[in-house]
């Protein structure tokens, strides 16, 4: 397949994943703003940070205000990391790789773009927000469903998966990066209800609040939440899960093309690093430092993949 096409499929699924992740972030922020209005400004600021959009937002707005942040993150055409922009980019990439995807996948992403675009054509009122966010999640699930149900398990599929999990790993890492301090053992906060809300928010932003409850019952501790999000191989948005999936898919490419690239060694290094690391040692090393390292590892991995498979030249 063409290098450009591999890149297009990779980015199509990265953007699709991104749109869903941003919708989830907003959902979590919206919830905390409703339940704890006093912390809402702080919460929206951290949502902007996580989305990597704070600077762009502040360039256009004086204050951090829930309605403005939501509008900026959901439907602002000039914000490259808004849900609207992400879905548009996913669809543009799908057009670019139209010959590599099935009609079902194309129609799903086209439908996603049309229906979300229609829902976002006017400012979203608070009372409609939950519905709009769920539409976004639903539509991207349709695309993923079409991918699983109709695509050959070949290199195209592998690049789609690698893009998905790179974006997801990056997203979970960003959430942890912005919120790591909530998970640090601190005398001041222990046992306070603020912690509980904050922890709940983190779990909610990765759609993991129920899964966590199943696994850990009612006991939330910062350490077990961190472990859940970083190391738990059952949790589909944990760092370990995502990088293992990336490794699997890169291995399929290795077998298919009968060629091993530097990206294979790199992803293997990242996976091994997480596998051999109990959560205590992460805390010892420093949660924030670990997340910072991870983010840059993932970024370098993405660049290596681009190069190894000639996305651009």
């Amino acid at each position, binding site marked *: 397949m*063409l290098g450009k096409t591999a890149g297009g499929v990779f980015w199509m699924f990265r953007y699709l994943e991104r749109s869903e992740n941003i919708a989830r972030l907003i959902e979590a922020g919206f919830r905390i703003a409703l339940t704890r209005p006093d912390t809402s400004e702080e919460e929206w600021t951290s949502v902007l940070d996580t989305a990597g959009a704070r600077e762009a937002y502040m360039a256009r707005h004086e204050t951090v205000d829930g309605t403005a942040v939501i509008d900026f993150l959901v439907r602002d055409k000039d914000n490259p990391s808004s849900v609207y922009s992400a879905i548009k980019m996913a669809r543009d990439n799908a057009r670019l790789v139209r010959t590599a995807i099935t009609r079902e996948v194309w129609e799903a992403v086209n439908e996603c773009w049309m229906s979300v675009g229609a829902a976002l054509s006017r400012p979203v009122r608070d009372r409609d927000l939950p519905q709009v966010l769920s539409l976004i999640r639903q539509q991207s699930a349709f695309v993923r469903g079409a991918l699983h149900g109709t695509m050959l398990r070949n290199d195209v599929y592998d690049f789609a998966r690698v893009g998905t999990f790179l974006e997801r790993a990056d997203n979970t890492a960003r959430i942890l990066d912005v919120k790591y301090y909530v998970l640090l053992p601190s005398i001041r906060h222990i046992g306070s209800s603020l912690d509980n809300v904050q922890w709940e928010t983190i779990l909610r932003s990765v759609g993991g609040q129920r899964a966590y409850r199943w696994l850990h019952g009612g006991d939330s501790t910062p350490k077990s939440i961190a472990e859940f999000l970083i190391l738990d191989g059952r949790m589909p948005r944990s760092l370990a899960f995502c990088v293992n999936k990336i490794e699997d898919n890169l291995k399929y490419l290795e077998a298919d093309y009968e060629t091993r690239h530097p990206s294979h060694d790199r992803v293997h290094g990242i996976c091994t690093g997480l596998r051999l690391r109990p959560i205590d040692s992460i805390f010892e090393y420093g949660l924030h430092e670990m997340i910072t390292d991870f983010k840059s590892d993932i970024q370098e991995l993405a660049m290596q993949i681009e190069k190894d498979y000639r996305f651009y030249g």
Partner: protein
Amino acid sequence: METDPRFFDELFERPDQARRPYEDFHDWFSSDDIGRLRRKSAEAEEFFRRTGITFNVYGQDEADERLIPFDIVPRILAAREWSKLSRGIEQRVRAINAFLYDIYHRQEILRAGRVPVDLIAKNAAFLPQMLGVSPPGEVYTHIVGTDLVRTGPDEFYVLEDNARTPSGVSYMLENRETMLQMFPELFAKIKVQQVSDYPKRLRKSLEACAPDCASAKPLVAVLTPGIHNSAYYEHAFLADQMGAELVEGHDLRVTDGRIAMRTTQGYKPIDVIYRRVDDEYLDPLTFNPDSMLGVPGIMDVYRAGGITIANAPGTGIADDKAIYSYMPEIVNFYTGEKPILQNVPTHRCSEPEALSYVLDNLAELVVKEVHGSGGYGMLVGPAASKRELSEFRKKLKARPENYIAQPTLALSTVPILTKAGLAPRHVDLRPFVLVSPRKVDITPGGLTRVALKKGSLVVNSSQGGGTKDTWVLEE
């Protein structure tokens, strides 16, 4: 339906009396519920939107993707009508290929004085770089879309030869697909010749034109200017249906005397390139140096026989509107036969006598730019306002060589389904022709374009035209 006696209606011979080819359809249509048909028609639009069959409109603020409106009343031709048309088209396309070979080699037709030398030498569509070059299989126009109009039961005219990169074939295919999905019962009742194997035939035809250095299973790629091009949907569609690669200029480069595409596993040579990029942009080293759409060095590879480019560079000299007026001569010169299809009488405004005639009769004529296409920059005299006429008069006087003029033809009509029921609208027809060394292959039917505005003679999609499914009946 009320018919207009000035125009030949292909469905209604007289009000409520269907012509033979349309009889079965008309029976079906009359017995069906018009409300249901209208709902179906809305469904069709939804279907097109969902599948993303769109075209981009130039000159709009947001590079919008638009749908080309689709009308559910088919345009129907009898097998006998079609066989005459297809013979005429084949004759014309063969003549065009012979003409191109001649123009780029010995130029017998110029020596014989049948076509003026200046018309070729001073024509921007003539590429001196092609002189002495023989394309693989000596095929120049691998794909042709001959535009035809009809003025009576047995009167067809060729309007344009479209020998460069004709578009619209994806609509021909999707229109049929849509009709099959919406009205399966109709196709059970009426036997219509297939069009759906066009992509397969295109692929075969292109493979048959592969250069000598090609592998046993030639690698075919479609070269597109990219997703912002107005016909991108079609480029992707054809590549997909043919099982060919869809490439852009920056995916390609010259390697070891071949054109190679950048794959995830390194560079891989291409044998045949179906390019949907104009000559001018094909090779920045040979033509427009600013072009980002082409492949630097592709012309050298081409001249050395390392790749087939379809259509060949320089074919524009055959479908230029100034050359058009010589087509009867050209057909006769190369085939020794009388043209089967008529040419529209054409006034070349570069000739002083013709110019003064055109200026005197502007309100009755259609004036076209010699190098224009897509209905842009065209004047339809009978429909023009006084102001438009006087503006065009100025343009004509300033650059007469830039224009040709033709009588306004009484284009045939085929009804469309409107809110008020059936209503006649003017149509044209673009059959698609595939040329390979041993074969001229014409898909039965083609794309019928229809002017949706009452009375309008302009069918171009960029000017508010729509399309219809086109049926050629089985014998």
